[in-house]
């Protein structure tokens, strides 16, 4: 296996109702360190299920997932340790409403990495500065706008120093004027070399930031290519149809 490969997926399948519904139907992919893989596709194509399989929020029906060279779906693997290195950002933010912004970010480092409170707070403040929300540290999620919530959610995931960040439609639940502020943070992350897998409908982001764009349809990868080729010279007819609808 190539040293540069961070996540290696082989023969991934996720079936529901005893195989009647095939959300993922045989996916193989290598994700290299520092790569920004953007996953696009129509809704119901299985792209979110695929992303959620990478940290086993969805249990695969079949197939193996290697992370850092270790099969995370084996009985011996401790998925909780692997998840600490895989940050995840959700469509609906999922901030902890009973904790303020600072506590949302410091909770996992303090409880899981036994980081001292002062260190965790320092780190959280640095992250808050990075997402331009240092003045919101003591506010509660309910007081923030959608875009602010999502930026805090990104900071919360980054506080664990993950090796890869998984984004599950991070801007889909946002008002249009807030999409940009979240994408800007993600672009900064990508520039700084973070490995990212991003499920999104933001084609502009895919074009500008993606190292590779993947088209998901009917639970399969129908096409994968560099952004330039992907958008200018799509081969799969389903992708051509999809692009003609989303790029107007």
């Amino acid at each position, binding site marked *: 296996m190539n040293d540069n490969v961070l996540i290696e997926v082989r023969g991934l399948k996720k079936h529901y109702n005893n195989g009647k519904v095939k959300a993922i139907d045989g996916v193989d992919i290598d994700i290299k360190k520092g790569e920004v893989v953007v996953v696009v596709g129509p809704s119901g194509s299985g792209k979110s299920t695929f992303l959620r399989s990478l940290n086993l929020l969805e249990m695969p029906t079949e197939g193996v997932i290697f992370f850092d060279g270790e099969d995370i779906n084996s009985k011996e693997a401790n998925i909780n340790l692997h*998840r600490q290195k895989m940050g995840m950002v*959700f469509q609906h933010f999922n901030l*902890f409403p009973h904790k303020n912004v600072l506590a949302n970010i410091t909770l996992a480092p303090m409880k899981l990495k036994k980081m001292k409170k002062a260190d965790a707070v320092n780190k959280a403040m640095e992250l808050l500065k990075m997402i331009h929300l240092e003045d919101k540290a003591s506010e509660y999620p*309910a007081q923030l706008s959608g875009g602010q919530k999502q930026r805090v959610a990104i900071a*919360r995931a980054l506080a664990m120093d993950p090796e890869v960040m998984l984004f599950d439609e991070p801007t889909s639940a946002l008002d249009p004027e807030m999409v940009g502020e979240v994408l800007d943070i993600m672009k900064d992350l990508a520039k700084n070399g973070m490995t990212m897998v991003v499920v999104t409908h933001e084609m502009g982001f895919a074009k500008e930031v993606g190292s590779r764009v993947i088209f998901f349809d009917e639970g399969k990868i129908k096409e994968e290519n560099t952004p330039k080729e992907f958008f200018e010279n799509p081969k799969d007819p389903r992708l051509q149809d999809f692009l003609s609808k989303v790029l107007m």
Partner: protein
Amino acid sequence: MGEWFQNLSDKFYLCFIDDDRWMWLVDGLKNTLIITVFALIIGVIIGIIIATVRSTYDKNGEAMKKKGGAGYVFLRIANAICSLYLTVIRGTPVVVQLMIMYFVILVNQQNGVIVAIVAFGINSGAYVAEIFRSGIMSIDQGQFEAGRSLGFNYIQTMVHIIIPQAVKVILPTLWNEVIVLVKETSVAGYVGVVDLTKAGDRIRGRTFEAFMPLFAVAIVYLIIVIILTQILKVIERRLRKSER
């Protein structure tokens, strides 16, 4: 009219002042409160354990089944026991449970108050369990996923993220269970405990006066419940504030 008042105050004297009978009510009230408080403690402990087992089975059973091993077998058995407990306790009257406890299970325990605490504790445990479970299940699945995705294991996610939120949701309902429990303990007299109700009944038996002692008992219960309800209102107001 004056005669009527005279009559009334004579009866009052007979029922409460004579022989210091009002002290019977005080002692009875003490037992009622002791039984309620300790039964509640037992009930909450049982309730949390059962709610945790049952919601773990509901939410995490599939993942554990896949991993296999002793953990899943244990969880399945524990879940089956909890379900049986809930069915039996909620399916039979509390008076019957109390008598079975006193006359069949804890035959050697002569102290009726302890038997009553155990019986009411086990009984309210079943109701508290379902209250807790509904609280846990009412928390958005995304909160679980956020916790798990950060690397918290199931129990850590429950402790740090789910239960603090669930407690807020269920506090009013849980407090309501306390109000119900206070009144339910009035059947403790069946196993020889002199609680508030039994004390009033004894005064009736001694004085052949029904009106005074029974209304006195009813008024004391009413005052307790009104106080508890006021506390409930304060709790609800506080919770609303923290929601912002």
